[in-house]
């Protein structure tokens, strides 16, 4: 810092307060060839935090496959980008905002949305859709209700106001998250391919321009304190982290201004300011471009008086971007920003050549107050190979399988308890803006028209889904995550989409616990293998560690966002609903194939039934056959895709959900079988269609509730043709029953299993969440 202040050397404990270990300090001294001063130490503190450096997870993440024909930008940039055809690229990214949301749910979730949007428009893409994956404890408790209300209102107020529709997400209630809720947000954007920009600086003498909000003391140390420290369980003795307040209006203007700058070709590189603020944005852009940067903190517009240089450099004030522009372009940049009422200030210059090469130099009114190699902050963070160990009881837990040991119960009552209608959540989200939402929340995946202001005309569609299943991943992280990917692909197929790319958010407990590292490693391997099996690249991700309360880690919770493409979108896909008179057909194998006797034909381990109805979390998960799954989902995607791509003709004016097929339609409705098994899938389709069904010959409660993958329910007016086409595609198909009437009746081989009126089903479904949340 400025002369007269103690150097870091004189305050030996400082590095520890900043979250740096003694070894890390030694490494810094080695890199610099001297002791760092306070400012420099603060820079390393934030940049080498788990949150920014991925130091515990990096060596594992390298095992994920990232290459693919369509990939334009893979992991490492702000968002992954694929080529969607017709000159349009699609950018996508997912991120967690777990810890801030736990203490200020509204602002925590809101700023999470703001951050993920910036990651996407940084790439030159207009954000077109948001999704949110939410995990809470059971909503019957006032604190959980406060969290749910706050998080949902935060996503709603920020997303709606900034003008990006939230088109889907997930909602999980499990006691494991009571002390540590998870809030993951995904954003998808699109851009004309030629507008693609990367977050890198270049060109000696170019200007570093800070756009957006003034800088305050928001989230200073927040990165390390919020993201790298677990909760003690007692909010009272928390070192009070400063939570940021989001400003969607500023972000809206920032989006418009940045896209206008990019359209006009006025910037050389651009980068959002997220965790670690200017420290991160300046060092990353410089390091990626292989240049240096000279920043003067006195030129940074402040919201508060008396901020020290290290505060300015590490502040996480929201709604800011760093653009690199040529001096010649600066007047034009200023003009664009003035129109959008966005503050723009030159805060530094790009340096290259001589001893400046690769150096990040921080000045205060001209005086150098810190200088480090930019790459040492951004790229040279330590990489840890933390000890890993499978849980000692693994064998015993796998053997503790509910499939064989839990007796059947009242299937109707259990089914009712498993129904959950998330519309309480998504009714609060604008999910229609841009007029692209062909299938919105309530569908297996969101299907969007690939259109937006400034994009080339196209008939293509893009589909996206987020999926997770902590109950599977807790029982077996490696197979669990593969099953999650399979489910996501099935969800995409149900709206006619072929998967194209994966992003992931790995929410785990404390990486200093060897079991957690084992879970992480198994998850990465499981995901890597599954992605290879389905030939999908991972184009981005995020890791959130230290999700624990009083020493108890959350179950491993990988959340996958999977992007799919649809050739032509001219009609809405068949809804996840039954319609009176159609046959109910199960596509995919009804039971575990092969190895007779060795594996139960309808495994229940890891199912919602086992976990939620019986409190049993262990056992052997159902197996996944990637080839069979690929055959099934390709078949479903082609059937639905056919319907979606059909010319509309005179059909304009049809009501919602009717835009498919002719009189005796091949596909009236379609829905994958996932959480809660066949029972829940049937009930959801019945409620959505407002019609009952009669299904016979089900092999007991196990077939009703198993979450055996690779199964899709179809409602069809032409069952023979559907089954014949399935057979030709190598996909098993079987008519289970008929839709119609006022009851959902499921009969087993010997006796009845479920007999519920539509009123009972609707009540269980619609009332479930709203009633519990509004109970206050």
């Amino acid at each position: 810092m400025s002369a007269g202040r103690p150097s870091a050397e004189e305050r030996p404990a400082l590095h520890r307060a900043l979250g740096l270990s003694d070894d890390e300090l030694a490494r810094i001294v080695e890199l610099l060839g001297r002791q760092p001063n306070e400012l420099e130490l603060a820079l390393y503190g934030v940049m080498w935090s788990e949150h920014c450096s991925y130091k515990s997870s990096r060596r594992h993440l390298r095992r994920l496959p990232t290459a693919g024909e369509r990939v334009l930008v893979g992991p490492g940039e702000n968002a992954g980008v694929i080529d969607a055809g017709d000159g349009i690229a699609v950018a996508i990214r997912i991120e967690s905002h777990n810890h801030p949301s736990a203490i200020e749910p509204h602002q925590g979730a809101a700023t999470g949305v703001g951050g993920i949007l910036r990651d996407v428009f940084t790439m030159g893409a207009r954000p077109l859709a948001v999704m949110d994956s939410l995990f809470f404890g059971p909503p019957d408790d006032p604190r959980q209700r406060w969290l749910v209300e706050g998080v949902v209102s935060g996503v709603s107020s920020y997303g709606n106001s900034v003008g990006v529709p939230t088109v889907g997400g997930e909602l999980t209630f499990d006691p494991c998250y009571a002390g540590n809720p998870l809030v993951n947000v995904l954003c998808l954007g699109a851009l004309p391919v030629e507008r693609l920009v990367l977050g890198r600086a270049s060109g000696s003498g170019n200007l570093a321009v800070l756009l957006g909000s003034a800088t305050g003391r928001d989230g200073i140390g927040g990165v390390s304190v919020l993201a790298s420290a677990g909760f003690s369980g007692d909010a009272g003795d928390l070192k009070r982290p400063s939570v940021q307040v989001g400003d969607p209006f500023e972000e809206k203007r920032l989006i418009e201004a940045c896209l206008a700058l990019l359209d006009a070709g006025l910037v050389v590189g651009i980068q959002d300011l997220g965790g670690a603020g200017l420290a991160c944005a300046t060092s990353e852009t410089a390091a990626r471009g292989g240049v240096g940067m000279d920043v003067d903190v006195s030129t940074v517009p402040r919201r508060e008086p008396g901020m020290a240089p290290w505060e300015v450099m590490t502040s996480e004030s929201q709604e800011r971007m760093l653009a690199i522009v040529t001096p010649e372009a600066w007047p034009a940049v200023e003009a664009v920003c003035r129109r959008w009422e966005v503050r723009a200030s030159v805060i530094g210059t790009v340096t290259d050549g001589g001893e400046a090469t690769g150096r990040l130099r921080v000045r205060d009114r001209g005086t150098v107050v810190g200088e480090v190699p930019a790459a040492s902050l951004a790229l040279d963070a330590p990489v840890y190979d933390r000890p890993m160990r499978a849980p000692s009881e693994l064998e015993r837990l796998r053997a503790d399988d509910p499939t064989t040991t839990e007796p059947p119960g009242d299937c109707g009552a259990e089914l009712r308890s498993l129904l959950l209608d998330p519309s309480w959540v998504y009714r609060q989200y604008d999910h229609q803006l841009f007029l692209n939402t062909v299938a919105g929340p309530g569908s297996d995946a969101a299907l969007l028209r690939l259109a937006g202001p400034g994009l080339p005309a196209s008939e293509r569609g893009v589909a996206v889904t987020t999926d997770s299943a902590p109950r599977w991943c807790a029982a077996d992280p490696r197979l669990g995550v593969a099953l999650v990917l399979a489910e996501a692909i099935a969800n995409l197929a149900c709206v006619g989409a072929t998967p194209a790319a994966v992003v992931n958010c790995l929410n785990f407990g404390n990486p200093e616990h060897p079991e957690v590292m084992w879970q992480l490693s198994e998850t990465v391997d499981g995901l890597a293998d599954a992605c290879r099996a389905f030939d999908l690249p991972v184009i981005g991700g995020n890791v959130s560690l230290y999700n624990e309360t009083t020493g108890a880690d959350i179950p491993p919770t990988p959340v996958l966002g999977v992007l799919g493409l649809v050739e032509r979108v001219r009609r809405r896909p068949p809804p996840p609903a039954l319609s009176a008179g159609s046959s109910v057909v199960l596509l995919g194998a009804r039971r575990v194939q092969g190895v007779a006797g060795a594996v139960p034909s309808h495994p229940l381990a890891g199912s919602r039934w086992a976990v939620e109805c019986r409190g049993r979390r262990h056992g052997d998960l159902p197996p996944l056959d990637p080839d069979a799954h690929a055959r099934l989902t390709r078949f479903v995607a082609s059937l639905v895709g056919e319907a979606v791509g059909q010319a509309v003709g005179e059909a304009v004016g049809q009501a919602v959900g009717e835009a498919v097929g002719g009189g005796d339609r091949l596909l009236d409705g379609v829905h994958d079988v996932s959480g809660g098994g066949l029972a829940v899938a049937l009930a959801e389709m019945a409620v959505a269609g407002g019609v009952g069904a009669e299904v016979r010959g089900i092999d007991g409660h196990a077939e009703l509730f198993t979450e055996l993958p690779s199964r899709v329910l179809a409602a069809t007016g032409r069952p023979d043709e559907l089954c014949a086409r399935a057979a030709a595609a190598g996909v098993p198909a079987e008519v289970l029953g008929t839709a119609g009437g006022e009851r959902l009746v499921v009969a087993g081989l010997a006796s009845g299993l479920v007999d519920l009126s539509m009123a009972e089903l609707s009540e269980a479904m619609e009332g479930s969440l709203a009633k519990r949340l509004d109970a206050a």
Partner: protein
Amino acid sequence: MSARVGVVVFPGTNCEHDTVLALERVGAAASLVWHTDERLEGFDALVLPGGFAHGDYLRPGAIARFSPVMGAVARFAAGGGPVLGICNGFQVLTEAGLLPGALVKNRGLRFVCAPTRVRVDSDRSLLTAGIEPGTELQIPVNHFSGSYVCDPRTLAELRDAGRVVLRYVENPNGSVDDIAGIASPEGNVVGLMPHPERASDALVGSVDGLLLLRAMVTAAVAVRAA
């Protein structure tokens, strides 16, 4: 000749592109008008679209009504020009005093984005001219502050003069008298909370909004001819 419609954009407005698309579907030539513009010559009608002008900070519409364009909008309306406010645009029109009453937070205190059914209650407005009263339309709402309130005298006036143009079949927000849209005494200024532009394509769920927009565009051309 097709109607020339100006779509007014405040910082924070976000439905302007959707509104332009829907207007084009009914044959209008729509273009964006920035909130600092004060020249509205050459337009046959104006639309204040949905969104969050100035972030909806303070109150929806409270800051936007002071934008330079609003003086011109008021003059345009006073001259009989058709002015339509959709959602946030409706809020701006009430704040600016071009329509009576106010829009307050929804009864449920939550944002609501959902399809709703509305009934045309009067054909004495630019938006409903030629549409049989009683006609039901499916048009989505998308708002946090959409609950219409006004004093009893204003309400009586609105009712008696056929200025309640749309009513909700099932009230989603607690609006007095199920009011979804109202008109000025002359019928040329209309505000409504539902989003007709979001019901302009079967692909996104409904085409019923086109009926309203077509009526407006037809009225605009007629005004110009007169």
